[in-house]
């Protein structure tokens, strides 16, 4: 597979045209001829499954041909927080793409700058059933929807394990725990608790194949830590915006992490969203929290490891199971130049057929936000090993809740805690040997600054 990972479309370049000199200096400017009903620009989150970008580009092409509208497409990676950076830059500059891909808390941060898309979401809901809870929580404001829930890159970051290593070192058969079939919760799955999780982490650590859980400040790490906190009922900030770091639940979660961090790799504190993937693909780690992208890349670069990978549900804590969920939306800037075409494009891309086609192309990575779409059989037969992503979407038999780190804190506070990685920094401090009291004290001062 030598897919060109770089190739990007550059159709029109409205901006450059403003500068005649630039246009003449840059010979690749391409202007579509008459007949086009305007242009619209969109930036997509750069997909972590290699085939994703091509799939969506194909659909965009279909839209262009159908609507005689020109679409300028950019793919921007979330690595190095580039998407957040772009969104903030465009918001400040009041210029940029018409449509943006915007995730999680950042969406709430930009609520005032985004165009109302109530009509689009209403039509989609009529067609494909209601949007899920996280989508409602994040995307709906007082005046209705201000962004369209998207399947593009919407993901769970649940457990991903090496089947053979779990059997050999921990005596856990993850395929038996979570078979690729619509069966009631197995006894093994029921026994999959935080205590077993910790014990397994220790065994794997001793076996030299540690859990590849990072505690750096990026999204994957924060989402993982956030869901484990949630399963202890621990909130740093409560729904009223009050700091709850002194609570018993937070202390309990920190006590758990104090044990867990010892079994994590020595440099887990510096891990970003790609470190865990590399650790799994290289065979160094036995377990990570991730969508199927690590597996998908392993299929290409390390097939033997890919065949040994299984995705399943998270362990249960005192307050239940929480699957880390990260949700992408497509929003239209208020300053967008071509809002009607932008709405059409989004609606087109969210048609059930297109959503299913993309989810298949990215090997099940994309999770659709609308109820009827989730009934699709996209995840059933994907492999090898066949059925590895069957339990990647949250299924009723998992008894798990999709969770975004720091829910249900008020968004304007949550976005700061999330983007600064306060939670994982607390864990990193514990790994560096600080006591729970020290960490709580530090966290308290940081949190005060966000309120």
């Amino acid at each position, binding site marked *: 597979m*030598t897919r*060109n*990972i*770089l*190739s*990007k479309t*550059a159709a029109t*370049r409205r*901006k*450059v045209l*403003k*500068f005649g000199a*630039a246009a003449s*200096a*840059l010979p*690749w400017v391409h202007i579509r001829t008459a007949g086009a009903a305007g242009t619209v620009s969109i*930036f997509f989150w*750069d997909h*972590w*499954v*290699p085939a994703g970008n091509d799939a969506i580009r194909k659909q965009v092409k279909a839209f262009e041909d159908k609507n005689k509208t020109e679409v300028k497409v*950019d*793919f*921007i*990676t979330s*690595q*190095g927080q*580039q998407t957040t*950076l*772009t969104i903030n*830059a*465009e918001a*400040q*500059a*009041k*210029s*940029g*793409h018409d449509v943006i891909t915007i995730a999680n808390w950042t969406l709430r941060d930009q609520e005032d700058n985004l165009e109302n898309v109530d009509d689009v979401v209403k039509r989609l809901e009529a067609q494909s059933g209601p949007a899920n809870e996280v989508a409602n929580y994040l995307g709906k404001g007082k005046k209705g929807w201000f962004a369209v829930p998207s399947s593009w890159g919407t993901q769970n970051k649940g457990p991903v394990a090496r089947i053979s290593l779990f059997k050999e070192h921990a005596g856990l058969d993850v395929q038996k725990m979570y078979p690729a079939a619509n069966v009631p919760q197995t006894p093994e799955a029921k026994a999959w608790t935080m205590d077993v999780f910790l014990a397994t982490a220790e065994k794997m650590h001793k076996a030299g194949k540690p859990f590849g859980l990072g505690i750096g400040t990026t999204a994957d790490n924060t989402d993982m830590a956030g869901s484990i906190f949630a399963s202890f009922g621990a909130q740093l900030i409560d729904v009223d915006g009050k700091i709850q770091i002194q609570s018993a639940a937070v202390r309990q979660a920190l006590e758990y992490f104090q044990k867990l961090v010892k079994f994590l790799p020595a440099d887990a504190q510096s891990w*970003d*969203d*790609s470190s865990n*993937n*590399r650790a799994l*693909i*290289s*065979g160094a780690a036995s377990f990570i929290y991730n969508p199927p*992208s*690590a597996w*998908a*890349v392993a299929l*290409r*670069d*390390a097939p033997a490891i890919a065949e040994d990978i299984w995705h399943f549900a998270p362990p249960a804590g005192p307050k239940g199971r929480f699957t880390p969920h990260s949700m992408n939306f497509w929003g239209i800037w208020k300053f967008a130049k071509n809002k009607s075409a932008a709405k059409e494009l989004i609606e087109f891309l969210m048609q059930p057929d297109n959503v299913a086609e993309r989810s298949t192309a990215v090997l099940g990575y994309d999770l659709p936000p609308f109820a009827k779409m989730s009934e699709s059989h996209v995840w059933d037969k994907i492999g090898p090993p066949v059925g590895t992503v069957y339990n990647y979407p949250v299924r009723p038999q998992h008894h798990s809740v999709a969770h975004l780190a720091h829910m249900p804190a008020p968004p304007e506070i949550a976005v700061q805690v999330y983007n600064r990685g306060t939670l994982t920094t607390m864990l990193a401090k514990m790994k560096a040997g600080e006591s729970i009291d020290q960490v709580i004290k530090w966290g308290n001062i940081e949190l005060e600054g966000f309120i």
Partner: protein
Amino acid sequence: MSGATAAAGGPVPRKKSKVGSLERQQRISIRSSYAALSIFVVIFLVPPFYMVMTALKSSAEISAQQGNPWIVQSPTMENFIQLATDASFQRYFINSVWVTAMVVIISMAIAILAAFSLSRMGFKGAQVLSTGVFLTYLVPPSLLFIPLFQIVGTLGLINNTWVLVLLFPTLAVPFCTWIMIGYFNSIPKELDEAALIDGATYPQILVKIFIPVALPGIIAATIFAFTVAWGGFLYPLAYLYSADQATLTVGIVRELIKGDVFAWGMIMAACVMAAAPPIIVYTFLMDYYVAGLTAGATKG
């Protein structure tokens, strides 16, 4: 420096033996210099060496992690070929070349005119200006990129390579001016005074005397401006966010790093290709550059 204590403080030996021991001492010191320098060269060249080695590896070889990572086992040019034929990478390259060319031309024009004026013509406040020029380095780009973000935003230049053409000269011009003043000052005043008396105009003096004589300085300053524009990272990172506007440095750092994908062979190949132009320039023109850099300093 070894053996120095032996000579220190002792009575001055007779001349003959002194010369012999000096020669021997010198030989030893040269040999140990070579030895020490070799160690430094090896250390200094580790990253570039690894860059080249990784560039020659396939993704599969990198992820397999078999054997010695320092040596490529089955070298392939695939990464280079793929990059060279990739539309995005070509665009980064074109953007970089275009920005660099513009910045060099603009910076040199500003610097030469100002240096000529400051060195020869003089006006009220010329002294303040020539000191002030150097002081602009005290306000580094990392202090200014946030207000400049607002300013270029107002100008509508966000996400447009023109923003670099506007901003990079602020980094290049002061030092280029400084180099040029140094070179112009070293041209004997009699030369242009004679020309003036003979009725030459200032533009004539500049074009016919100063530029030819100060050519080494111009080369040095040009290389400096080239380096600044080619390697600039903060401004393009902060102000250019779409792939079609990226220059090489941000294009590689931002667009090629995809967490899940083992594109490291390609990333390193891209680094090799992006580092090649400056390395080639330095290989041929290093002496000018070194002379230019140190010209001002050694006078002090």
